[in-house]
């Protein structure tokens, strides 16, 4: 375990200065996520167009550096991408957090890839995986129009 692997520069930067932390204009979908165990809360605002493309996405909420950074990085990464692509990215992201696998998605630019990879240190801290995935699950809920709050299980 190395704490610096968890709190990499990029993660700390997104945690302290989160991008897209607001209610984006013209959002047509939203969902809430809650981690009852640690109290992390997130709300995702999404503008999804008729072709199921993410035109805009933003979030609000409070939580640890990992959950805020992850939400911030998510909004940056999937803005402008198709919902199906975003879903694929999440799949790879979860595999990275749980299995330690690399991200291998063509639709991610080099920069996007590096930014996402900055969260790979979470793998060594299984208790924190939920923090890193909360915003993502909430985004999926929003896109699929699910009403109930996302709750991370124990």
């Amino acid at each position: 375990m190395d704490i610096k692997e968890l709190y990499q520069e990029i993660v700390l930067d997104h945690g302290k200065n989160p991008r897209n932390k607001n209610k984006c204009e013209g959002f047509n979908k939203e969902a809430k996520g809650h981690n009852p165990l640690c109290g992390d809360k997130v709300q995702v605002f999404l503008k999804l167009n008729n072709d199921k493309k993410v035109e805009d996405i933003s979030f609000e909420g409070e939580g640890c550096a990992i959950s805020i950074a992850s939400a911030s990085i998510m909004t940056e990464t999937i803005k402008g991408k198709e919902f199906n692509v975003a879903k694929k990215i999440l799949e790879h992201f979860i595999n990275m957090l749980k299995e330690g696998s690399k991200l291998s998605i063509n639709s991610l630019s080099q920069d996007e890839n590096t930014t996402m990879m900055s969260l790979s240190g979470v793998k060594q801290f299984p208790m924190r995986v939920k923090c890193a995935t909360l915003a993502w699950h909430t985004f999926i809920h929003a896109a699929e129009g699910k009403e109930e709050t996302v709750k991370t299980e124990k």
Partner: protein
Amino acid sequence: MDIKSIKSQFPIFKNKFNGKPLIYLDNANSSQKPKNVIDRISKFYSKEFSNIGRSVHTLAVTATNRFEESRDLMKKYINAKSREEIIFTKNATEAINLVASTYGDKFINRGDEILITELEHHANYVPWHFLRQKKGAIIKFAKCNDRGEVDIDEIKKLINNKTKIIAITHLSNVTGVIMPIKKIVDLASEKKIPVLVDGCQGAPHLKLDMQELGCDFYAISCHKMYGPTGVGVLYAKKKWLDVLPPYQGGGGMIEEVKKESITFPGSPTKYEAGTLQTAEVVGFSESLKFIEDVGIKNIMQHEKEILEYGLEEIKKNNSVRIIGDPKHRGSIISFTIKGIHPHDIATILDEDGVAIRAGHHCCQILHEKMGISASARASLGIYNSKDDIDALSSAIKKCNKVFNT
């Protein structure tokens, strides 16, 4: 006092975690167990085990005796008037639910008031909330001030003819305030209102005397008293146990069962339904012996010394905010660090082997009152030393460094 030799009685400290020795500062959550407790459970299963109270064979008689000895020790530890006043439950949560359910069924009706405080652990709020829903009762919250204490006047203000019970913590698991229970009981008894005390943090850290304290109910979790999990105690004045209905129904708690009617025995049998956590209760007797050997007064004095040192050391760090500043404080320090979320603090501390808790500690109402959603909490036990505090403060400095604050 020789803390090193006391600590050496706890096998967990012989292990390393993440390659580091364990600095255990999560005692308000649960305490570690001395070897005698662990060995006692093993010995009980190896040599003495049987279900209690039901069979007449030799094993059953011995097991029953060992179990009942624990009750006697507990009676002595809290100076209850009689052994019938000690009921074994699975934890303090169950003890409070037992009272909310039985007392509530019999004595609380629509519009009646239950008086609790903003300090309460969810275990001393949610059971009353169920009662509120079931009976249409009202819950009043006595206000907590900035120091993290509930002024007795705030309680006085809320007492009226509708108040049917006062349920209050002895020692807050967040701010550490020690509440003036005796004064509250005096106030309540003028109006003949029973008082339930959530003694989860009181029992391991304070000298208890039920007859002097005068409360009607006192709830305890033995796993916070160097005892096994799965054991709690409800102390209740006999006058209540004589009039309250049983809690759960089943084997062991009956007198006579007929097709048309059932009668029940007296306390504690009436409240101990089904097969109990026999081995754990027997093991718990060793926790009480351990506490008695060290001496509760010595425990209090040692923890006070470490607490004061801890507060002093942590206050030196300007980025730290300590939650509450009560005049009478038990061995709990909850805090936040500017710009760093408590979960990140806990993870960074953990890397240095420093185990604390982060979150709302089952006190969401109190955290909201303090304007935060979570805090980090260091809580002491008998084995903690000034070295542990030093490890805590340098780990806090490491948080500042990682986050560059």
